[in-house]
């Protein structure tokens, strides 16, 4: 076992240790999540977090990176992302400069070729960076919203995650000395391949419970009154029962709480809810929906029985 991994294993030696470390970073990890992080460190397996947008999946990777005090390498996936650009690119401008320089001081062709296709001219992209772990420290690799990438990319990623090596034809193969701590997230807009899932420890993350959300608000929004935090958490719970296009996530909760604190609100009333709805709902249709149900009704904890189509 490499020393760096033992660093991860030390920080994440037990469920309680994970919970404490996360708490120091102002992240409240429930026991299943903490256990999964611990197992990921011990078994050196990637974690696959699935859940609705805005439940804090990405944050897990960020907190892991902070706790382990390692670099966070983030690979944001999108439609049409191709494998090549996630590994490396050559620094063409620099190569051309080098060639021009070589013209004035002629040297053997092979030497020049070797020199301009060397590490110095290589621009490492996320996957290569995660594997090369410069400085001898493993990194935390966040592969965000993998469900957005095409299936071809998923297959390629599978290869990387099983061998932890990538190849640059001109230089050779890089193999990870220390396995990075890998977190994959998916909003589940499509099903991922079974092979990829099999590589990972799977955890579905739900919206936080009322009590947990209140605690998150209390921790993240300085100067908020407990009563207001409690009301906000309760309202978010109700709002998530409404069939909005975009159900508000935890980020929206925090935005809203900060806005309310800024406005010196100590208790949300129907007018405040309507006026600040833009913090919680990001679609015009959704805001109209809220109006048609009636802010007062939401405040009384009723999401409207006809809320679901």
């Amino acid at each position, binding site marked *: 076992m490499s020393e760096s991994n033992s660093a991860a294993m030390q920080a994440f030696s037990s469920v309680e240790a994970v919970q404490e470390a996360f708490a120091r970073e102002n992240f409240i990890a429930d026991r299943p999540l903490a*256990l999964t992080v611990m197992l990921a460190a011990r078994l050196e397996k990637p974690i696959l977090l699935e859940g609705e947008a805005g439940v804090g999946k990405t944050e897990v990777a960020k907190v892991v990176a902070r706790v382990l005090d390692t670099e966070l390498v983030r690979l944001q996936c999108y439609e049409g992302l191709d494998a090549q650009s996630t590994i490396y690119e050559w620094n063409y401008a620099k190569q051309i400069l080098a060639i021009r320089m070589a013209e004035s001081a002629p040297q053997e062709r092979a030497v020049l070729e070797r020199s301009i296709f060397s590490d110095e001219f290589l621009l490492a992209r996320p996957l290569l960076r995660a594997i090369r772990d410069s400085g001898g420290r493993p990194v935390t690799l966040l592969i965000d919203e993998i469900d957005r990438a095409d299936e071809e990319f998923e297959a390629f990623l599978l290869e990387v995650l099983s061998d932890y090596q990538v190849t640059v034809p001109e230089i050779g193969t890089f193999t990870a000395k220390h396995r990075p701590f890998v977190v994959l997230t998916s909003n589940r807009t499509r099903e991922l391949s079974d092979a990829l*899932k099999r590589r990972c420890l799977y955890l579905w993350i739900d919206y936080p419970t009322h009590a947990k959300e209140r605690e998150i608000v209390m921790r993240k929004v300085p100067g908020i009154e407990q009563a207001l935090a409690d009301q906000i958490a309760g309202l978010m719970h109700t709002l998530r029962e409404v069939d909005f296009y975009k159900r508000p996530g935890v980020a929206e909760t925090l935005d809203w709480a900060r806005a309310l604190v800024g406005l010196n609100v100590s208790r949300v009333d129907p007018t405040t809810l309507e006026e600040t709805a833009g913090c919680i709902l990001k679609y015009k249709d959704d805001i109209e929906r809220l109006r048609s149900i009636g802010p007062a009704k939401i405040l009384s904890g009723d999401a409207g029985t006809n809320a679901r189509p």
Partner: protein
Amino acid sequence: MTAEAANTPVIAELPGDGSNTNLFGRVLEFCRLLKSAGLNVTSGRMVDVFRALNCVEVERRDDFRVALRVNLAASREEEEIFERVFEAFWEGDRGGDSAPVELHLEPSSDDRTPDVPETPPYVRGSPKQYARDEVLRDKDLAAQWPGELSGMKAILRELARRLATRPSRRFRAARRGRRIDLRRSMRKNVRYGMDVVELTRSQRRIRKTRLALLCDVSGSMDVYNPFLLRLMLGLQKGFKNSRTAVFSTRVTEITRALRRQSVHETLAEVGSLAKHWSGGTDIGAALANFNRGILREGSANSTVGIILSDGYDQGDPAIVRREMQALSRRTRAIVWINPLLGTEGYAPVAQGMRSALPYVDYFLPAYDLPTLRALCRTLGEV
């Protein structure tokens, strides 16, 4: 690392007293049970389970459960199945009664447990809600399969070609491209001692259009089903990134089933997935699902929404209107293929159809090859 771990005798390392071998056996038995409940339990996963158990306090029931679950379940649905099997299996364990646990996971057609998730998780609301006249049956789809329709393939290929017209951000090599590909030029000219002799060019890739296909399989559409099936299969093959869902009173995504190698496997899987085949219709709810699920992310510019339905609807027209509006914002164009259109005396008067029409860009018939060919010509302009 993995190899090394696989070689360690995991059994011996399990914490606790002599009951270890017992636990080992029980876990194996549990894995087998999960397998029969439909989870993909491989030997690799089982090795990981035992490695995981080494790291947790197995006496803590919740830790034990989560350690097993993160390794064995690979989706939210599987998590739910896992929980149920776990309860049944280890709960029975407590009483000291080692009688084999019986499971009722496979619902028989008339005795369904309503909480078995067969719809994707984005399907909100109780499925019972619209189960009024739902007909759940295991349709023998294969019996309806009339074999390949020659000519359809060619038409769909042509359609795929016509729809792929969006320039992408990515480039590919091309002899007469506008842009000089530095990367390839550099590689190529190394052999001339870095004098630039040949330039490699590239041009923008053409981005493939993504189809989102929502197919009505309710009773009123039944007659056309063989044709529908072929169309769905053909479109799925022709457009790699497309997604297909079928609906009647509920929505089931069948993309994966359509990707199977053999038609017979596909038919068997589609049949078992879409048990509401030939039931009633609720277009509004189906669209709502579609908007929140398949279409929630991804670029609207590259997506064409295709709805195959006769528009006979039992739901609320106001919801149909609202969801059609939402759909039109999530797609580049909406094509409504109505098999009834063109039959004599048909006018789109069905209420669901009427409320949807204002948002439909192309309203077309398709019930056989000639109409499909005409459809393809029109779609080429989308």
